[in-house]
């Protein structure tokens, strides 16, 4: 393929990944790295660098439309960003040390886990939990607009959530993904933050987390301008379109299709990593 042909095909694939990632809430970055490495035979380090850049673009691009709804909690986000940025820095340094086959295996495992999480039914939200002393001192408790007016919530298990966030940051730095699934797991399941607040706050944190490892990737020569350009523009365009049609689209069957895609890509990455093909 010549450079213009390659650029056009990668841009289209990235656009579709960004669109589906935004419509299903599963994120586009998670499928980009396997697609680039398996179908375009891109070295996984270049793929991770390009994906990381696109993650910053989607997170920051969508932030303006999320905050107007009044769901995201800036204090929860900023407090947990201490853990995610520190983890991301560590992950990025680790990525430059460990062999690419190990990266592929970890990536495969994360994809399989994301596919599992996306199919698992969420337990119903518990209401009126007692205030946690640490969460109160950190001023993490908040409220959000609900059907019957403002609904307040009390954040639980702050140390567990903080540790999970460190892991989410490390995965993000290691694999060049937003790791929104782990972030939502930490906030929604461990800290018992309402789902809507968790997802919008997570979106905000993803960009800052990715920026923490992007500097390391760029200075190590993992961010190729020729590859990152179509990936970033494609994913950004797709996710901006996705956030506009989100309300009208039937996302349930779409989510099923996308989680099957993630499952297949995860198995392929595991196979390639274990048999040393990456």
């Amino acid at each position, binding site marked *: *393929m*010549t*450079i*213009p*042909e*390659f650029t056009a095909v990668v841009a289209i694939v990235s656009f579709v990944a960004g669109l589906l990632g935004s419509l299903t809430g599963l994120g586009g970055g998670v499928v980009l790295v396997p697609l680039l490495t398996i179908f*375009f*035979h*891109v*070295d996984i*380090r*270049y793929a991770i660098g390009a994906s990381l*850049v696109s993650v*910053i*673009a989607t*997170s*920051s*691009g969508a*932030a*303006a*439309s*999320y*905050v*107007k709804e009044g769901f995201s909690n*800036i*204090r929860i986000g*900023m*407090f947990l*960003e*201490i853990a995610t*940025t*520190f983890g*991301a*820095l560590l992950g*990025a340094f680790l990525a430059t040390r460990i062999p690419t086959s190990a990266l592929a295996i970890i990536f495969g495992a994360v994809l399989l886990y994301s596919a599992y999480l996306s199919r698992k039914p969420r337990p119903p939200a518990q209401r009126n939990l007692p205030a946690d002393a640490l969460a109160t001192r*950190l*001023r993490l408790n908040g409220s959000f607009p609900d059907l019957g007016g403002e609904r307040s919530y009390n954040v639980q298990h702050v140390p567990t959530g903080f540790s999970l966030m460190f892991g989410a940051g490390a995965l993000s730095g290691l694999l060049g993904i937003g790791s929104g699934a782990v972030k939502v797991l930490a906030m929604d399941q461990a800290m018992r933050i309402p789902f809507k607040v968790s997802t919008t706050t997570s979106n905000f944190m993803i*960009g*800052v987390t*990715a*920026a*923490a490892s*992007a*500097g*390391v990737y*760029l*200075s*190590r*020569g*993992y*961010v*190729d*301008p*020729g*590859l*990152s*350009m179509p990936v*970033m*523009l494609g994913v*950004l365009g797709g996710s901006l379109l996705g956030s506009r049609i989100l309300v009208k689209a039937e996302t349930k069957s779409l989510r099923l299709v996308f989680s099957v895609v993630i499952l297949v890509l995860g198995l392929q990455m595991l196979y390639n990593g274990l048999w040393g093909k990456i």
Partner: protein
Amino acid sequence: MPAIQAPVRPPQPPQPPPQTWDDHRIEVILGNLLRGGVLLSAAIVLWGACIYLSRHAHEPADYRIFRGEPSEYRTIHGVIESVMNGRGRGLIQLGLLFLIATPIARVGFSIVGFALERDRMYVIFTLIVLAILLYSLLGSGLGG
């Protein structure tokens, strides 16, 4: 004895609610800042893409083997120099640097927001996040 009447006030025009630096208002400003930063960087990347694609129209694309980028695309100094030389890939890289700077700028502005709310604890938390981000950007060799 006649009841004491409260002095009748002339009807007042409805006052707008006092503007305060609450979290939501800060969030909306920062959200727009982020979107502006992303659109600016996308425009720079697109501009660089036009130059790059027009100059390399017939070369094959190959990313199979990792070579690492040359220093002109790995440091802020090198990127600026290659933009000065009119290189398309230098412009793309400049756009990507703007993109990375956008969430960092948001964290920087959040410090101002928390300071206006006189929330010292969160000013400190945000300073820690900013320090980690600046270390990543400048301490990892990018600043050279």
